[in-house]
């Protein structure tokens, strides 16, 4: 396996310089912070709003990092993420980053790449996609799944094929799959909600994000499959990838206290089940053959 070198970490204070709601209770948060190393796709930051009242920082996958700005896409799921999402502009937060191992982008070069993301699992794959495009690689197959239209972070989804589990109110109810043209029938959020619509030109389909994965992989036997999202989605996609014999990378999430391999709370069984790996340090990006996953 290609060695994935961990990068130099920085523990410092950052200033909140941007916050915008991109989808229902999900925020684009921008932090001004001096990091000693660039953040790569899949790496994460432990972020602790200093006035949050939560004991521990929370791990957030990094959406983008350039020019001293760290962008996170934060869905409110608990006290920590809620506190960060609502930290006012100008307030300080503690940042420890970059942490963990990134997607090994060199393994993706020159090969067809298929990205399957669900929910906030979009974050590392959005970054991976932008890194691949920036280095001149072919446009990856980019599949994004969400439950409802309210969960779509419109401006991040340009170029992504969108799958919704629940048909939007205005859409024709599908028998597992119904494609809506991006012209007239494109579903939009209820008027006046202030929430974004699906991106212009994007394709939206009702059904699981894995619906067409097998077809896509069947045509691309040398593909690399990268997954991040809810466990059930990743496992379903990983099984399809394994059956097709393609290389599969997963980006995992676990509860963690430290982000540095110390607290041992984010451990998962390694392949074979005899030893453990930490999601924070051995991951969060794993090749499917490293871990006992599906």
């Amino acid at each position: 396996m290609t060695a994935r070198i961990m990068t130099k970490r920085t523990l410092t204070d950052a200033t909140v310089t941007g916050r915008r709601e991109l989808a229902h209770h999900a925020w684009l948060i921008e932090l001004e912070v001096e990091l000693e190393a660039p953040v790569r796709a899949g790496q994460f930051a432990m972020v602790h709003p200093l006035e949050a009242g939560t004991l521990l920082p929370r791990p957030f996958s990094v959406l983008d990092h350039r020019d001293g700005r760290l962008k996170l896409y934060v869905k409110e799921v608990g006290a920590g993420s809620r506190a960060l999402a609502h930290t006012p502009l100008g307030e300080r937060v503690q940042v420890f980053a970059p942490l963990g191992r990134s997607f090994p982008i060199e393994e993706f070069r020159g090969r067809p790449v298929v990205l399957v993301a669900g929910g906030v699992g979009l974050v590392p794959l959005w970054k991976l996609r932008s890194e691949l495009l920036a280095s001149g690689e072919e446009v990856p197959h980019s599949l994004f799944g969400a439950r409802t239209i309210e969960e779509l972070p419109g401006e991040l989804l340009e170029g992504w094929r969108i799958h919704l589990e629940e048909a939007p109110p205005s859409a024709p109810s599908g028998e597992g799959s119904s494609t809506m043209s991006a012209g007239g029938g494109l579903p939009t959020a209820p008027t006046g909600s202030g929430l974004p619509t699906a991106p212009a030109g994007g394709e939206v389909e009702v059904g699981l994000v894995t619906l067409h994965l097998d077809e896509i992989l069947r045509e691309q036997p040398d593909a690399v499959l990268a997954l991040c999202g809810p466990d059930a989605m990743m496992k379903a996609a990983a099984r399809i990838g394994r059956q097709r014999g393609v290389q599969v990378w997963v980006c995992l999430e676990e509860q963690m206290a430290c982000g540095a391999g110390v607290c041992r709370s984010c451990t998962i069984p390694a392949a074979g089940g005899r030893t453990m790996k930490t999601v924070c340090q051995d991951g969060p990006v794993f090749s499917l053959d490293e871990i006992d996953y599906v």
Partner: protein
Amino acid sequence: MSEARSSGSASNPPLDPSQVDLRVTIGGVELPNPVFTASGAWGYGLEYLDLVDPARLGAVVTKTITVLPRKGNPQPRLRELPTGLLNSIGLENVGLGAFVRDKLPRLARHEVRTVVSLAGRREEEFAEMIGELSHHEGWVGVELNLSCPNVAEGGLDFGTDPRLVESITRRARAVLPDGKCLLVKLTPNNVPMATLARAAEAGGAHAISCINTVVGMEIDLDARRPVFPRGIAGYSGVGIKPIALAKVWEASHAVDIPVVGIGGIATVRDVLEFFVAGASAVQVGTALFARPDRAHRLIEELAAELAARGVRRPAELRAGD
């Protein structure tokens, strides 16, 4: 001693921080300051070399080592509460062989004052592990973990029986090389702290580490069962500080050996409170997860805070009887 205890009131004129003497001696081992990292909260002392110098700490107490590697408990292993953490890690560690091969030489190279936390499944294992350690450099002492609530064998069974505490401590002391210190970490659960502390002192401990986690539980109301597969877990963090202070007070009044205070320490004020309660040194645990350089910051703040209060040595803060 009594003279020292009566001095150090808040009305003393301030000192220069350079006049403050933070040194503490445990079993003949002199440590430059009384702030240690607690077992389980700072790994093997090598995980943050890129951020801070572990040799600046009074000591690093390692993650607990067992004879054989342990995978630890199944998920979930950790829950955050408003007042602290519940953990059920289950002593996951690399085992003594890998520790002495991979960790100790690096700890020695970085001149870390390492206190090796040890847990055994049998009474004899503690002494056997010290025997193995005695062939290697890179450590200044051991801390017997007689109080982990998260394992089925050893752990609390040993730590709540004063006779076992005394006999395990005695066996460990008998094989401890000269110039090393022996700490015994005791549980706040089930048995009076004074009883356990006296047992450890009788067995030859150089210091008492007080306290390990408090037994706790979280309930999954929808599933109508405990969150952790083992039911109970170890409660740590700011919520246990009052318990720890009471236990340090009790231990320090029961024995003549130093007491190392542990439990919810996050600020320099917490550290001073433990000194007042009778601690000679402190260990920082849960607070390190949020800020791995917290103990280092406390050392700096401690000298400044003692100087501002006109206190030359932490021991002067101890309350009168």
